[in-house]
C-alpha cells in the first residue's frame, strides 16, 4: 500500500522518520494543490463549453455587490489554504531541528572537486568508560571517489563508502575546500551545502542497516554529476570492527588507550582504488 502510494507520488522511498515526515507533509500539500489545480482547470473547461461565443451571445457580468463579495472570498480562500499548509510546515521545521541532540559519532564531510572526504573523529564517547572524553582528532580519513567501472549502480557507486552505525544519531559536519558542493541523500532527507569557510551541521539517524545513495547537488564544475555519495548503515558491532580495521588497531587497543594519536591523522588514509 505504501509502495503504491509512493510510486503514485513519484517520490523516493523514505529511510528514516525525517524523510517520512517530509513525504507526509508533501502528501498533504500535494492533496491541496492538486485539488486547486483540478478545480481551476475544470472551471475553465466548463466556461469554454457553456460560455462559448458561438452559443452564448449575451454576457452576464457580476453585479457590483457580488463582485466585492467574491473579491473578499478570493482573498480569504488562498489565505486559509496557505494557513492549512503553513501550520504543519512550521511544526515540522521547528521539530526537525536536531542542533542540540547528542550524537553518537561525528564525521567531517569535506567536498572537493570532485570527490568527498570523510574524516572520522576519535570521538571516544563511543567507547564505554570514556564518555566524558571528547578528543577532536581526525583519526580516519577516507577519500570517496566515483567508481568508474561500476556497471550495476552506474554513477552511483563509490570507491569507499561512508559507513555509519545504524540506530544511532550521527553528526555530519559538512564543509568544502574549493567550491560549493552539496551533500545530499534523498532517502534520508539530508541536503546540506558544503560551503568553503563554513561548517554546516546535519544529523542523520537510520533505524536499520542499508545502503543509501545520493549525488552532489550544487553545481561544482565540470564533473559535478560524477561525485556520488554512498552511505552505508551497519550494525554497531560491525561498525566497531570496520572502524578499527580501517584504523589499523584492535578494539582492545583503542580501549586501552594504546594508540599513538599523534601519528594517526595523516598516517591512516585509505587510498583510492
Amino acid at each position, binding site marked *: 500500500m505504501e509502495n503504491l502510494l509512493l510510486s503514485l*507520488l*513519484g*517520490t*523516493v522511498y523514505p529511510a528514516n522518520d525525517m524523510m517520512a515526515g*517530509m513525504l507526509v*507533509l508533501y502528501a498533504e500539500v500535494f492533496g491541496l*494543490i492538486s485539488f*486547486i*489545480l483540478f478545480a*481551476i*482547470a475544470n472551471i*475553465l473547461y466548463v466556461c*469554454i463549453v457553456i*460560455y*462559448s*461565443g458561438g452559443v*452564448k*451571445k449575451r*454576457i452576464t*457580468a457580476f453585479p457590483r455587490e457580488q*463582485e466585492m463579495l467574491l*473579491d473578499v472570498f*478570493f*482573498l480569504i*480562500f*488562498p489565505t486559509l*489554504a*496557505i494557513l492549512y*499548509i*503553513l501550520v504543519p*510546515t512550521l511544526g*515540522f*521545521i*521547528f521539530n526537525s531541528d536536531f542542533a542540540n541532540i547528542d550524537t553518537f559519532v561525528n564525521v567531517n564531510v569535506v567536498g572537493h*572537486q570532485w570527490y568527498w572526504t570523510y574524516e572520522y573523529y576519535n570521538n571516544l564517547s563511543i567507547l564505554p568508560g570514556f564518555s566524558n572524553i571528547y578528543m577532536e582528532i581526525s583519526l580516519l580519513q577516507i577519500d570517496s571517489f566515483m567508481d568508474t567501472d561500476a556497471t550495476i549502480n*552506474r*554513477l552511483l557507486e563509490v570507491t569507499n563508502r561512508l559507513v555509519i552505525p545504524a540506530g544511532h544519531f550521527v553528526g555530519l559536519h559538512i564543509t568544502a575546500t*574549493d*567550491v560549493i558542493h*552539496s551533500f545530499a541523500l534523498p*532517502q534520508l*532527507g539530508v*541536503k*546540506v*551545502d558544503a*560551503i*568553503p*569557510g*563554513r561548517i554546516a551541521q546535519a544529523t542523520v539517524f537510520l533505524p536499520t542497516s542499508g545502503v543509501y545513495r*545520493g*549525488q552532489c*547537488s*550544487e*553545481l561544482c*564544475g*565540470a*564533473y*559535478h*554529476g*560524477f561525485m556520488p555519495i554512498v552511505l552505508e548503515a551497519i550494525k554497531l558491532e560491525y561498525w566497531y570492527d570496520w572502524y578499527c580495521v580501517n584504523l589499523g588497531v584492535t578494539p582492545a587497543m583503542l580501549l586501552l588507550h594504546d594508540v599513538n594519536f599523534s601519528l594517526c591523522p595523516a598516517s591512516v588514509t585509505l587510498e583510492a582504488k
Partner: protein
Amino acid sequence: MYQGKTLINFKKDLLETYHLVVKHVRPFVESLEKTVFKRWVWTTNHKRIGILYLLFGVFAGVLSLMMSVLIRLELMFPGDQLLFGNYQFYNVLVTMHGILMLFVVIFPISFGGFGNYFVPILIGAPDMAFPRLNNLSFWLLFPAAFSLLLSAFIDGGAGTGWTLYPPLSSLVSHSGASVDFVILSMHLAGASSIAAAINFICTIFYFKMDSMYMKDLPLFVWAVLITSFLLLFAIPVLAAAITLLLFDRNFNTSFFDPIGGGDLVLYQHLFWFFGHPEVYILILPSFGIISHVVSTFSNKPIFGYISMIGAMVVIGIVGFVVWAHHMYTSGIDTNTRAYFTSATMVIAIPTGIKVFNWVATVWGGSVWLHTPMSFALGFIVLFTMGGLTGVVLSNAGIDVSLHDTYFVVAHFHYVLSMGAVFAIFAGFYYWFGKITGYQYSEYLGQIHFWVTFIGANMTFFPMHLLGLAGMPRRIPDYPDMYSFWNIICSLGSIVSLCGVALWFYIMYDALTSTSKVVCPRNPWIFLSLHSFLGLVYLKTRVFVYQYIFVRNVSFVIRSKNSTATTLEWTINSPAPLHTFISPIRVITPSISYLQYRNNSLCVNIVEEAALLCFMYKDVSSLYSYSSII
C-alpha cells in the same frame, strides 16, 4: 613585395582603390545611413524600438532554444550522447541558456518589446518620455548579448550556472576571462534595464492622457509600471554583487573568499535579493498581457480591476522580502527558514487572487477561443500549476529534499516557459495584426497552440517526477534509473522545437502569403452568425437564410461602430509611426465622465488618421477602416 619604384605604384593603387571606394561605396553607405540606419538604428520612435526589441528577443530566443535542445539531446539517454564527454561545455550551455532566456529573451520581449510598443499607445502618449534613452537602452542590449556569447568562446566558457556562485566563478575555478565577460554582460543588461525602467516610470506618470486616472490605466501598463519599480530597486543590488565578484577576480579583494575573511553566503544573499524580484520582473508583464487577452476574448471587463492592481503591487513588494527561500540548504538557521517559508507562502495569496479573477472574468462571458485566448487559458492553468509547485518549494521542510533537483527545474519552467512564454505567444497573436498590419492564419495558430502545449507539458511535466525521485539539476549524465522520464522530456523538447518552427512559418505565411489578410482596426469583434443575421434583419428588414448567407454574403462591419476597451484598437493597423500627436479628447456626458469604470473612450479617429496621412505620407494608414468578418 613592393620595393623602390613599386612602392610608388602601391601607393597609387591604394589611392585608386580609395577613390573607387569613395566613388561607389560611399553613396551606398550614405543611402544606407539615410534609410536603414536613420530609420532603425538611431531611431527614437517607440514603435520601431519595440519592434527591434521583439526581433532581437526572438533571435536570442531561438539561440537559447537551440541550447536547450542540445541539453535535452545530451540528456536523452544515459551516458555521453553528443557532447563527447565535454562536461564543461554542458555547463556552459546550461549557463548561457539561463542567462540568455532571462536577460535577453523574456525580459526584452515582454517588457521591452510589448512594453515599448504598447504602453505609450495604451496611455495615449505620443512617445516615450525619453526617446533617446529608449534607443540607448535597446542598443545596450546588443553588447550585453554579444559579450555573453563571446564568453562562451573564451577560456572554455563560463560553466557556473546563471547564479555565478563565487568559488566556482572566482579565479580558482574559472581563471580565464569568460566570467568577466558574463559580468560585463550582466552589467550592460542591467544598465539597459534601469534606463528602460526609468523611461517607463516617467512615461506612465507624466505622459498618460489627462482623462485617465491611475486606476484606469490598463493592466498591462500597471504591470509594466510595477516591473519598472522592481527593476529600479533590484538591479543595483545585482550590480553590487557582481562588481564585488569582479573585484575579487581582478583586484585581489576577498569579499567572497573565505581565506581572506570573506563570506560566500553573502554573495548568495545579495544575488537572490536581486534574483527573486527578477522572476517577478519576468512574469508581471505577462500578467498584464493575459489580463488584456482574457478580457477581450471573454467580451467582459476584467473582474476585480482594483484587486488585480493591488495584487500586482503586493506581489512586487512582498517579492523583495522572500529571497532566502533559494538558500534553504545554505546553512540558514531554523527561525530564518520559518520566516522565509511564511513570507514566501504569502505571495501565493495575491497570485491566487489574480488567477481567481481571471477565472471569474471568463465566467459568464462570451468566450471566443482564438489563438491568443487558447494561449491565455493555457497560461492560467499551467501558471497555476507552476505556482502551486512553487508553494511546495517554498516549504522549507519539503524543499530540503527537492532543492536543486529537477522538481525545481520543472517548477520554474512551468512559470517561465509555460507562463511567460505562453503569455508572450498570447500577446504576439493578440497584437500581431496591430504591429504588422496583417492577420495570422487562425487555423495554423490553433495547431501551433496545441503543438506548443503538448510539447511543453511533455518536456517539463516528467521533470517533477525526476525531481521527486531525486535527480539533481545541472548534471550532464544521470543514473540509469532516471532514463525513462528523461527520454520523454527530450522527445517533448523536440515537439516544442517543431512548434517554434511552425510559429516562424505562421509569421512567414501571414506576411508573404498571396491571400494575406489585412488586419482591420480592431480584429477582435466577435459576432456569432445567429446574432449577426438578427442584426441584418433589424437593419435591412430582410430575412436571410443561414444557408444563403454562408454561401454568398461577406458582410462588412464598420469597426468605428464597435467599442474598444483599450486604445490600441482605435488606431490603424499597422499602427502609424506617430500616434496621439494631438491629445485625445474624451467625449462623454459629464455623469459618465465621473463614473470612470463605465466610460468608453471615443478618440478623434478620423481627424487623426487624416492628419497622419497628410503629414507623413504614411501609406500604411491608408488601409480601409472597415473589416471583413
